[in-house]
């Protein structure tokens, strides 16, 4: 090309122009859905209309994938609400009802299996010792003699390290304290899984398998909507429930009433009373993650 003064055939400017045009051409040739997915904005930058537009797209996706009509909401955080959770270790019997209620409510992949709650069996002799914890216990009956149980899910830290390491800002803390993930924005690098000291984040290594008849159709865009392969997921305090005033599914299923949930900013709430009247502790407090998931002994 004469105008560049070089004789290597193609100038840099021409090359980049051609590449740009080709990319634009490919995008233009794609279906509108694919084009939109590639050119989407970050969830927090969407206007209310754009949020509704995305919800409509996700509804259509679910319709296509599962053949069922679903409701996907994007209910925002309420003002003056900070969610907290407390678990009574003196009551928990390790029956794992919460694990399965969570899977049912939050549409985790059945196979490969993903579970957000992991119940750790520990020995009374050694107390809370994560090195001796056994998540695979399976005795005839629980509670087993000389053992106690510590269910662990996302601790909903006030100072979450998972969000700070995310290179693309796909996970963040909402104003009501729930750490959420935008599955449309997650690139699957799993930095957050490495940063989480609680093993609370789970990666969709394989294509999530969820029978359509088992799909919970009551969805939240940042919560339990079906996930694609290659994204990270975790407990959201059942954001689709708690943002509408309901209790998380694990609270409702617990047969011994060990799980307590509420608004930390409301002094009359169960969780606020527990913090006031019981001795509570958090896991790995030395890491300064400041969880909003508290453990206590109710006796």
């Amino acid at each position: 090309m004469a105008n560049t003064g070089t004789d290597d055939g193609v100038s840099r400017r021409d090359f980049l122009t051609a590449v740009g045009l080709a990319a634009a051409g490919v995008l233009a040739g794609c279906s509108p859905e694919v084009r939109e997915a590639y050119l989407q904005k970050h969830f927090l930058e969407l206007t209310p209309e754009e949020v509704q537009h995305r919800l409509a797209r996700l509804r259509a996706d679910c319709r296509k994938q599962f053949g069922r009509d679903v409701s996907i909401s994007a209910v925002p955080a309420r003002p003056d609400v900070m969610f907290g959770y407390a678990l009574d270790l003196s009551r928990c019997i390790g029956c794992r009802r919460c694990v399965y209620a969570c899977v049912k409510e939050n549409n985790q992949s059945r196979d490969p299996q993903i579970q957000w709650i992991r119940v750790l069996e520990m020995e009374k002799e050694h107390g809370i010792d994560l090195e001796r914890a056994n998540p695979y216990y399976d005795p005839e009956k629980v509670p087993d003699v000389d053992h106690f149980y510590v269910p662990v899910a996302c601790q909903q830290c006030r100072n979450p390290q998972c969000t700070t390491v995310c290179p693309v800002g796909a996970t963040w803390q909402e104003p009501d304290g729930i750490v959420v993930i935008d599955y449309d924005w997650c690139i699957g690098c799993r930095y957050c899984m490495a940063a989480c000291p609680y093993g609370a984040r789970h990666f969709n290594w394989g294509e999530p398998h969820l029978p359509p008849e088992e799909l919970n159709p009551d969805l939240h865009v940042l919560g339990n909507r079906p996930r694609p392969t290659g994204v990270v997921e975790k407990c959201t305090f059942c954001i689709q429930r708690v943002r509408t005033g309901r209790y998380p599914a694990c609270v409702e299923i617990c047969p011994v009433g060990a799980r307590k949930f509420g608004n930390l900013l409301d002094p009359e709430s169960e969780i606020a009373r527990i913090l006031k009247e019981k001795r509570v502790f958090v896991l790995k407090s030395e890491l300064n993650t400041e969880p909003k998931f508290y453990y206590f002994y109710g006796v």
Partner: protein
Amino acid sequence: MSQDTEDRPEKGPENDELEFSIARSNALIPLLLLFGLSILGIVLIIVRAKPIESSEGATARQAFGPADFPGIFQQPPLEPLVAAPVADAGGHADVLFPVPAPPFSEGIFPCSTCHADITPNPERRELAMHEDIVLHHDEEHRWCLDCHDQNDRDHLRLASGAAIPFTESYRLCGQCHGTQYRDWREGIHGKRTGRWDGAKRYLLCVHCHNPHSPRFAALQPLPPPVRPQFLHPEDAAAGRTDAARRQDGDGEHGH
């Protein structure tokens, strides 16, 4: 490599030359052989090592889901939500907690149906009726009429002598279990469902605790999660379910 060398001497004539060279060498070669073999052994141990498993190593292989346990999701019929405890018009308690009906056995209430015609007998004895009741609740010191009203069997009896309906039995329990009663009133002890921001469903103590034997019975736990070595993401990507895999008979995958 070193294993080959060790095997060869037994194999045949083509190894004669090697055997010969070993025989001619000094003690270094057997030592080297031994060293090589031990390295190989260590590598084999590391590679072939079985994953660390507890005594229940046979479990945690199969992926179960909530659909396998429909029973646990069948909650008892829900009572109406209550916005807040109500003041007791009768003035017996500070507040009354609206609760579902007590979980009576079928056809047992009202008790007066039978007891109206029976002379009360406070003696500790082998009961001719109610043999299904096993008293395992401070049984050394307690007997029926400590809690059941002697003259009005359709009511319970507080230590003060006041008769209370079965729907207020938490007041009876609270006489001894004061801390639990306090925690229950605040929602710390016991199960609360409903809404975290408003109306809740309360349960009586006896909905969870058998009053005659209050300790919780042990439960069968739901199955553990699948150990990572038994997950099959590649199968799931190909649409093979866990059930299909079991039919194929490679449930022993990973061993």
